[in-house]
């Protein structure tokens, strides 16, 4: 396996930054965000969990998907493919989240062209976690701190013997191979350290269990404190709901230019489903918050394959009123244990 020192890694990253867009976690007034960097010294080395996920670079918070020029003729232009970019320092959970979004945006017909362009242009260079941090629960949803799925390269920090930090490089895809070709380093036999796992986490109940407890009073109870903000969905690496709207970019005599913007949206906010005329088909907050959990643990896996949650724990840390998705998982597990007949009853009713 190839190994390289931190100095070599920085050198390699600096070279990458010269030729393409290099994105890495940086510290912005105390918040760890994935931003473009031009110098590897700007990277927040030693970061744990970032405050925002690298989702921003695959499904940007706002992006024009079409440009519409309306003059004598109407022209509709697609947004050109983005420049090649490398995201460095992707945590394994976030890479699995990208796979979850792929399942819907790439593999479910029709695939989303704009997302596909971002995906093609992007290489994900992972950095495995030495341990599960506070609120992390990737192991509950099928991941691991050193999982390789979805990554092109995975770097693992080796236990140093007091000397300079050493990284072991796992090459996982052709894309990763291409990128690693320019990487300095030394081929040597190393054993990768086992990450430290958090014990005593709950077990995720099956989709059927969730189905059986859809109408449980628990959902109203857990929602009571919900403020109906959108923080949990925006920090989530796997939430993918969006809004689309045309907006004026330029208005001149004889030519109007509009952009069709796509921006993140959140099923937890009240206006999300409100339709013209004011009717809201999902009128209660408990139905909205419940939808978020059900989407992640039941609808998404059933409709598209992967779970809609990767256990990064960001929503737990971010929620202003401490609505804890891990507590929800545990509660559903408990509901299932206390009412084992519910699954069959629901199936019979349906």
């Amino acid at each position, binding site marked *: 396996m190839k190994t390289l020192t931190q100095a070599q890694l920085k050198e390699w990253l600096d070279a990458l930054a010269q030729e393409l867009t290099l994105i890495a976690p940086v510290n912005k007034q105390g918040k760890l965000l994935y931003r473009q960097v031009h110098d590897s010294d700007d990277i927040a080395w030693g970061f744990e969990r970032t405050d925002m996920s690298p989702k921003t670079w695959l499904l940007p918070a706002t992006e024009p*998907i*079409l440009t*519409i020029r*309306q003059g004598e003729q*109407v022209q*509709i232009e*697609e947004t050109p493919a983005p420049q090649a970019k490398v995201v460095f320092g992707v945590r394994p959970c976030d890479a699995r989240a990208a796979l979850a979004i792929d399942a*819907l*945006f790439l593999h*479910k017909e*029709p*695939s*989303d*062209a*704009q997302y*596909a*362009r971002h995906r*093609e242009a992007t290489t994900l260079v992972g950095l495995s976690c030495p341990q599960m941090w506070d609120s992390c629960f990737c192991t509950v949803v099928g991941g691991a701190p050193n999982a390789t799925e979805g990554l092109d390269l995975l770097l693992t920090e080796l236990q140093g013997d007091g000397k300079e930090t050493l990284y072991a490089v796992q090459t996982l895809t052709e894309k990763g191979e291409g990128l690693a070709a320019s990487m300095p380093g030394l081929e040597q036999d190393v054993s990768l350290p086992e990450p430290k796992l958090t014990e005593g986490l709950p077990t995720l109940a099956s989709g059927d269990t969730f*189905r059986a407890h*859809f109408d449980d009073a628990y959902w109203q109870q857990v929602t009571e404190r919900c403020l109906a903000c959108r923080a949990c969905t925006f920090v989530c690496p796997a939430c*993918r*709901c*969006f*809004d*689309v*709207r*045309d907006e*004026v970019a330029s208005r001149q005599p004889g030519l*109007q230019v*509009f952009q*069709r913007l796509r921006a993140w*949206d959140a*099923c937890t906010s009240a206006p*999300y*489903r*409100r*339709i*013209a*005329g004011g009717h809201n*088909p*999902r009128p209660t907050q408990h*139905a909205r918050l419940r*939808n978020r959990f*059900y*989407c992640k643990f*039941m*609808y998404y896996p*059933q*409709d598209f394959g992967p779970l809609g949650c990767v256990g990064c724990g960001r929503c737990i840390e971010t929620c202003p009123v401490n609505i804890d998705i891990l507590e929800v998982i545990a509660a559903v597990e408990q509901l299932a244990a206390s009412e084992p007949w519910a699954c069959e009853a629901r199936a019979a009713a*349906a």
Partner: protein
Amino acid sequence: MTHINPMKPYLATIAGVRDLASGIKLLQVRLDDPAVSSSFDYRPGQFVEVSAFGVGESPFGITSIRNGNDELIEFAINRVGTVTEAIHRLDVGDKIGMRGPLGNGFPMEKFKGKNIVVLGGGIGGAPLRPVIQTVLQNRSDYGTLSIFWAARSPDLLVFTDEYDSWRAQPDTELQLTVDQATPDWPHKEGLITTLVEQVAPSADNAVSITCGPPIMIKFAMLTLQKLGFQSEQNWVTLEAKMKCGIGKCGRCNLGEVFVCTDGPVFRFDRVEGFLESFV
């Protein structure tokens, strides 16, 4: 690599506009690209996303059937929000964008040989018109056709100019009702459910097809049940807030079902199994 962008609309030109009812316009459009236009095939019950450039996109049920070489596509547009208002301001010759056809549509083949009961409420009549047209064009393939057409008031009834031609067909009846009649209204006054219960179409070898506001669908289903219709005989087309129409944006789900890609047409027994209520 090039990608076919499902979010990119085709350009279309408005070929005709007429008032259908109070606040509702019928738009006839033709796709600009002849190749796209000639291959643009759709079934009753499918919908398209119509763009009013600079304002946005909204889903509308297609309210016409494809008639050989006549490639006009029709929608009924009720003025309720920003997009529909912008579309109402357009005129013949103006450009719109169109994506589709989207959704599943009615399985008209399956309905062959059956008696058809159609329940349309208000603008909900729009996606049912192609069903009626299909039955009438292939009259011998289907059994009797009973149309129950309702609206809040007489000026909100859609396709009034076609009633006579529908009635003129063999084995076809049309029943009209409004919630609030005007003095000159010659037909029934009251809810569509009352009317259906009075006329009591037979459930034998019949299918019902309903479109209207969710609350009307809910009560129509109860009424049909009373008349002996099984849920498997009842077909509905649902509405939901949609943005993308292709199952990505996550806005239209009822439980694990996406109205835009799995529907909007559902057999009612399936709807009964939805986790989330459609009402």
